[in-house]
């Protein structure tokens, strides 16, 4: 279990992490979401005692990280794939870490095999691809067989097979009762793996909820309806007091009613339907809805379409302050 109480990190005037209080529980995958620059990596570094909070505290199983005896046996972390010495073989990199925490050296071979790097154990990570570096970092995180596993953007640079493997791994670790805390800016990825979500924006806690709850609360589901008789259907909807937006000719996006009710209404009033499909808001949409306001760097509207003189302007990034 990881507990944060009022954690704030300031670099000079800039507040990177702002009074964060949350608990990461064992036995489930907790997704840590936020736009780029939201303070995710800083928060994770503070959990590991690498960065010191300006105020507040982080406890790992009730103790500050620095007080843990043989910390790698309690917490395994992947912070960035480059946290290894490029000139020392993969095996030796892990051996050095194992020795420092009294971890049996047989674990080195085990974790290298587990992440699929056994054939390149003697190679130096200097020549590794981003994906291989990521696998080596995950191997390092698993080295001490820790009850807490922390992964910062673990699928970065992985191929589809690798992404699937990380997903399965995280679920298995959580299934074994471990605490799995994983950051990502890829919402779709989190939708597939996380059970619980912690969302931050500009260093502030925006949400701390279950995955389904998060989607339900932060977005609307809608039903897409297509009909050759849009006039008639529009009347039916307004008579029933259901709001809808009409997109293309004969296509409606209905938010006020489930698909069952719309189908029954259409049958009752003998309106032929060509399509009746419920559309669930993805986590992606929910995330954008929630963090849109707090994104530190947000892309502006496509400049070409707004340039009045028809000359495409350079793409711009607007920095939003609220």
């Amino acid at each position, binding site marked *: 279990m990881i507990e944060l109480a009022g954690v704030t990190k300031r670099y000079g005037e800039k507040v990177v992490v702002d009074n964060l209080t949350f608990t990461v529980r064992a036995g489930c995958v907790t997704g840590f979401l936020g736009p780029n620059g939201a303070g995710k990596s800083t928060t994770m570094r503070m959990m590991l005692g690498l960065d010191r909070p300006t105020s507040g505290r982080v406890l790992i199983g009730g103790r500050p990280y620095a007080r843990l005896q*043989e910390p790698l046996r309690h917490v395994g972390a992947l912070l960035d794939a480059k946290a290894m010495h490029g000139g020392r073989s993969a095996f030796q990199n892990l051996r050095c870490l194992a020795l420092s925490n009294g971890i049996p050296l047989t674990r080195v071979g085990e974790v290298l095999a587990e992440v699929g790097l056994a054939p390149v154990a003697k190679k130096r990570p200097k020549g590794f691809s981003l994906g291989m570096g990521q696998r080596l970092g995950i191997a390092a995180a698993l080295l001490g067989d820790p009850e807490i596993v922390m992964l910062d953007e673990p699928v970065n640079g992985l191929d589809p097979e690798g992404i699937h493997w990380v997903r399965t791994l995280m679920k298995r670790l959580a299934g074994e009762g471990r605490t799995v805390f994983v950051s990502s800016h890829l919402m779709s990825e989190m939708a597939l793996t996380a059970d619980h979500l912690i969302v931050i924006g500009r260093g502030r806690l925006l949400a701390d909820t279950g995955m389904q709850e998060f989607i339900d609360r932060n977005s609307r589901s809608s039903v897409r309806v297509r009909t050759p008789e849009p006039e008639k259907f529009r009347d039916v909807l307004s008579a029933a007091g259901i709001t809808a937006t009409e997109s293309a000719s004969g296509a409606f996006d209905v938010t006020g009613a489930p698909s069952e009710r719309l189908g029954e209404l259409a049958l009752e009033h003998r309106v032929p339907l060509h399509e009746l499909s419920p559309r669930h808001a993805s986590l992606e949409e929910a995330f954008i809805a929630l963090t849109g306001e707090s994104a530190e760097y947000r892309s502006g509207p496509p400049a070409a379409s707004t340039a009045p003189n028809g000359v495409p302007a350079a793409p711009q990034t607007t920095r939003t302050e609220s």
Partner: protein
Amino acid sequence: MSAPVAALRSEWAKLTTVRSTAWTLFAAFAVTVAFGTLVSALSNARYDDLSRQDKLAFDPAGTSFTGGVLGQLAMIAFGVMVIGGEYSTGMIRSSLAAVPRRGVFYSSKLLVASGAALVVGMVTSFVTFFAGQAALGAHSTTIGAHNVLRATLGAGLYMTLMAVFSMGVATMLRSSMLSMGVLMPFFFLVTQILVSVPGAKKVAHYLPDQAGEAMARVVRNPDVPYGPGGGLVIMLLWVAAAVLGGYLVLRGRDA
């Protein structure tokens, strides 16, 4: 196993599994011995050209240690890379996550690397002494002569302390490139120039490499206001300052 012992074993494994350790330490040995022997041979050949005063002040042991001026650069490189390797690769975050008590991490690393530097420094100074004396022929001295053993130990200790000093500086600067960029020109050029400028001379005597040179001399340099003991003290103060500075930076800053 207690944490400090585990940290020492880990640091020893780190030291012995990167190539830079072997080649910097070998370079320190080879350059010092080769250059020292060459200077000794040249001194032997041109001995008759020396003035009477210079002949009286001739220091055969010190002459054989001349190679240290170049060899120390490799020792500096060793010290810098031991620390800088952690920062340039990002390994430092893994290392500090594994050993969160920064004093334990730092002292283990320094202890292990200083030990290696001490062994290489001593081997180098004894080998260069005997090789240099062989090259000096009739003008050589023996290890048993007055103060010669002390000077040989001083030369080996000096190389070790330069490595430790560099480790402290590299920990303060947290970068191999920056540390090399500061230390190399400083000890290769700046101090050499300063000692030959009349006004700057008085201050330059107290720079670490000048203090170190005093440690390796049998015959005291009349221009320098202290002897070998004073040289050792000055050198130790420099090293202590660098190591302490490194510790304060490591303890205080985010990794």
